[in-house]
């Protein structure tokens, strides 16, 4: 009796044959240690990547945001009739005869008047005062007068760009010490700028011309904008999309669904994969040789740029399209063929719609890649071209010389004036906004149209 009641409690637990499960043996410890080490490596790698990204983005943003702001000076300019239209008959041809140079005195006297009105004390001559303005100011004034000849004789309020040194001074890039050897600006002029700023007529403001405007010459960094080269990029992307998408998709469908498996198709396949890895400058020199030297298409034209970038983008599109066609389960093809669809019907009715999100994603990524490409444009003359006038009309958009966004950025980064450096960073911000937008669209499309089966 006692035995029975005691036995269950007192019975010693059977000793595990291979050690307790509660203790890790040496082998398990080693394996676990290796696993946690590997996890640490992974986390470290991601950490480094993220850190680099953060450094890069902060750098770009801090260096580039300045380009979106520009310093302006408000001036009331009297459009004197005796200077602009001596005959007084408002004949546009006569008005046009007055060169940009002829507008300088108007600006000088406007500043003089403004200084007197504001009660600013300065030793500078009106001409020296006028020099704080951008050289673009005279051109702006002239364009205004030609556009509105009726305004001659009146006093009109303008907001002029100041020159890049003054702008740099307002942004902290230029200091009194740094201009010791600078002939284009004096300490006295900076003092004058301080006075104008305190009076509230000289201030920093958002500058839409940087985004929509055209490039300017070396002398006028403050007037340079990325707008025209953005148009160039846009026209190129148009060419790339119109050519690379149909050619790429047709080629992939043929190779994936119709082509016999033989040596020839194998060779083509290997070559397409290799083409994707060919340096883009090679496509540039190919474009130079074929499109410009042989076919005599115009140099620096977005059409040629687009053709070159099409060559470069095709392999990307073909590879991604084929991958997404391959990802469609063969049972769908069987099902379509089984009910008596022809091969083409099976492909176009069933396979292609299922592969479409992948194809679109590949195309957008290919386009984004093409949008950021500079090297091939170097060889066909789109780099270094100063896109100072927007193209007029669609045909001109494709055929007249233009630049492209990355080419414009490269061009700015080459120029001597540090004010261009800021614009290069600003251009990169705009380019990145485009790329991020395109990639986001790709992700959204994929999410939206992805069908599960």
């Amino acid at each position: 009796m006692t035995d029975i009641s005691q036995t269950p409690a007192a019975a010693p637990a059977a000793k595990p044959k291979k050690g307790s499960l509660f203790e890790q043996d040496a082998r398990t410890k080693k394996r676990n240690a290796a696993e946690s080490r590997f996890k640490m490596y992974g986390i470290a790698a991601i950490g480094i990547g993220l850190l680099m990204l953060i450094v890069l983005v902060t750098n770009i943003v801090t260096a580039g945001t300045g380009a979106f702001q520009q310093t302006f000076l408000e001036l009331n300019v009297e459009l004197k009739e005796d200077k602009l239209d001596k005959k007084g008959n408002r004949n546009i041809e006569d008005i046009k005869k007055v060169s940009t140079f002829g507008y300088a005195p108007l600006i000088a006297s406007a500043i003089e008047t403004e200084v007197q009105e504001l009660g600013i004390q300065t030793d500078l001559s009106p001409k020296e005062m006028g020099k704080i303005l951008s050289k673009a100011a005279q051109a702006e004034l002239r364009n205004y007068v030609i556009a509105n000849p009726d305004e001659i004789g009146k006093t009109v309020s303008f907001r002029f760009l100041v020159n890049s040194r003054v702008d740099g001074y307002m942004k902290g890039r230029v200091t009194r010490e740094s201009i010791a050897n600078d002939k284009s600006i004096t300490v006295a002029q900076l003092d004058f700028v301080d006075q104008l700023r305190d009076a509230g007529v000289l201030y920093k403001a958002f500058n839409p011309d940087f985004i929509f405007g055209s490039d300017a010459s070396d002398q006028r960094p403050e007037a340079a904008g990325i707008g025209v080269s953005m148009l160039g990029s846009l026209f190129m992307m148009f060419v790339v999309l119109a050519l690379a998408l149909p050619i790429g998709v047709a080629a992939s469908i043929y190779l994936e669904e119709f082509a016999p498996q033989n040596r020839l198709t194998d060779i083509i396949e290997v070559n397409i994969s290799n083409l994707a890895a060919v340096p883009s400058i090679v496509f540039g020199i190919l474009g130079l040789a074929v499109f410009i030297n042989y076919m005599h298409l115009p140099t620096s034209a977005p059409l040629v740029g687009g053709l070159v970038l099409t060559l470069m983008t095709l392999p990307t599109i073909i590879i991604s399209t084929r991958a997404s066609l391959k990802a469609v389960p063969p049972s769908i093809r069987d099902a379509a063929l089984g009910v008596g669809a022809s091969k083409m019907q099976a492909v176009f009715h069933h396979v292609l719609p299922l592969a479409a999100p992948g194809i679109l994603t590949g195309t957008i990524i290919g386009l984004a890649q093409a949008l950021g490409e500079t090297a091939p444009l170097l060889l066909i003359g789109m780099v270094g071209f100063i896109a100072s006038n927007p193209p007029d009309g669609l045909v001109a958009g494709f055929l007249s010389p233009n630049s492209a966004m990355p080419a414009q950025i490269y061009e700015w980064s080459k120029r001597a004036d540090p004010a261009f450096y800021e614009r290069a960073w600003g251009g990169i911000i705009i380019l990145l906004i485009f790329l991020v937008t395109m990639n986001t669209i790709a992700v959204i499309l994929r999410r939206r149209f992805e069908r599960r089966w």
Partner: protein
Amino acid sequence: MNDMTRVERAVDSKAIKIAANNVQVYYGETHAIKDVNVEIEDKTVTAFIGPSGCGKSTFLRCLNRMNDTIDICRVQGDILLDGEDIYDKRVDPVQLRAKVGMVFQKPNPFPKSIYDNVAYGPRIHGLAKNKAELDEIVEKSLRRGAIWDEVKDRLDAPGTGLSGGQQQRLCIARAVATEPEVLLMDEPCSALDPIATAQVEELIDELRSRYSVVIVTHSMQQAARVSQKTAFFHLGNLVEFGETGQIFTNPEDPRTESYITGRIG
């Protein structure tokens, strides 16, 4: 005994739908089907049984030229459908497949609505002149697929959202929608649970009244349940072909006996 003879006579009186003479199939260098001769009768369920890799599916896919999609596959010999050689140069495989429908191992509805799944075949073959006719074909086919009652209220729902058994019956409905004369089924129940299998088997028995059905199956019980004729394949050879009852109770070839009793395969 009397019953047996009556059934046999009934089977014997049927017309030959498909006749295969000396069919050889090669996958590249591999000789996959060796000299197969078989006659498939109209309005009969013929089962192909045999161990994995014996060539029964390959042979089935020859019957509507689905093997054409495989580059390295070559077919020799004659396969006659109603006396016409389907491998003749003048035959368009697309037209053939409209006559010889197929249901696959894994249910493979199109990722479209139930309605569109069934309507696809009639649409591409121009079987319906207008929407009303198409609706009629879809309903009729879904009824023949024994799935109408389950889906009639949600024809716009995606076909892929149905259960496995429903999907397979939808695929059968899709196959019969084009009014085929022969229905090929490649292990139609292997991905289904027993209940769905029973439903599909019942359906196959009903389909027999209109079509000649050829079914490949791994399950000998299934072959015994649904078929009137059975062909046993082994290593690419057609070992034995005859009445299902006879194959299962009194096989002539020792290999057939070994397979049926579970010693090979």
